[in-house]
């Protein structure tokens, strides 16, 4: 058990943080939602009602889609684009999908390589893109969930303000949908930009996200 926890400490740490944050969001969200309902002359809802409401769903989904988009773009962009000096980047000259030798496939397969990497054909192709595909799928589904839940929350707001509800098509073309979407995207892109650029010049001793303290600023693709 202790061995399992030690071997998976990083995943478990973020899993616990995720669950605590989601729980905290649900409690704070219930209080905020009830305050708004009372101000509008309505009645309050329970925690259980709030966490199954469109308001909670859209707030969760809009953050999820932007996080998965961020990692999807980071995974795909770093195949083709480099940043000299950044530990987040490959070395200049290695842009692209790389050789079979670099990717340990075909003639260069290892005995302990994943079975789909050894299989070749469509399974190799699918497995070779599986990280981006899954991230992309979760991004698309989260964004779709945001649009559906967002429409429901928006329509409740519209009715409370004595205005007509809108169709799904009207909602995905609305300012509310794009404001929610873009305010999340801009912060994710800024965070990636900061990580890529700051890690050229700054160091964090012991972190694999940083270059070793003594590594040159121009050293690229070196992890500490």
């Amino acid at each position, binding site marked *: 058990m202790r061995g399992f926890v030690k071997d998976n400490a990083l995943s478990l740490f973020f899993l616990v943080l995720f669950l605590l944050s989601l729980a905290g969001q649900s409690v704070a969200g219930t209080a905020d939602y009830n305050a708004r*309902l009372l101000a509008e*002359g*309505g*009645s309050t*809802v329970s925690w259980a*009602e709030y966490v*199954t*409401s*469109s*308001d909670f*769903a859209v707030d969760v989904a809009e953050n999820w889609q932007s996080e998965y988009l961020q990692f999807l773009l980071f995974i795909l962009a770093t195949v083709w684009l480099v940043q000299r000096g950044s530990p987040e980047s490959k070395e200049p000259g290695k842009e692209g999908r790389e050789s079979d030798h670099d990717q340990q496939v075909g003639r260069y397969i290892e005995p302990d390589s994943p079975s789909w990497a050894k299989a070749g054909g469509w399974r190799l192709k699918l497995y070779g893109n599986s990280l981006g595909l899954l991230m992309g799928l979760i991004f698309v589904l989260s964004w779709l*969930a945001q649009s*559906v*839940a967002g*429409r*429901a*929350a928006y*329509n*409740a707001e*519209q*009715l*409370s*303000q*004595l*205005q*007509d*509800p809108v*169709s*799904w098509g009207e909602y995905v073309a609305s300012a509310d949908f794009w404001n929610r979407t873009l305010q999340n995207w801009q912060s994710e892109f800024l965070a990636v930009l900061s990580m890529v650029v700051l890690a050229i010049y700054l160091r964090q001793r012991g972190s694999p996200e940083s270059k070793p303290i003594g590594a040159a600023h121009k050293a690229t693709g070196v992890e500490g």
Partner: protein
Amino acid sequence: MCAAAVALITGLTGCASAEEGAAGQAAQRFYSAISAGQGDRACALLTPRAAESVESGGEACARAVTTLVMPGGEVRGAEVWGDEAQVRLVRDTVFLHRFPQGWLVRAAGCRPHGELPYDCEVEG
């Protein structure tokens, strides 16, 4: 809550028709009470704020509400989103809010006003 759950599962629909029916019946009961001159009954179907707005001018809700001119008519359609509902009658529109005790009218005798909120005879 219902709207969210159903919308997430089925994609693009509003809330279940049972709630739309309940909201439509509440709107009809309100209009029936007014046309029957039953002010007390009509005011009991209003949200507290809407009842207060009818009272303005020093006149009691039960008395003032029966003097309102609201054409109403048969229910043509209803939509429920969260705890809010819109019921479209033949000649005007009603907005309701769901309370623990059921649907109450928050605005009635409403006419569209372009991109702006509806213009309503009763509004609270």
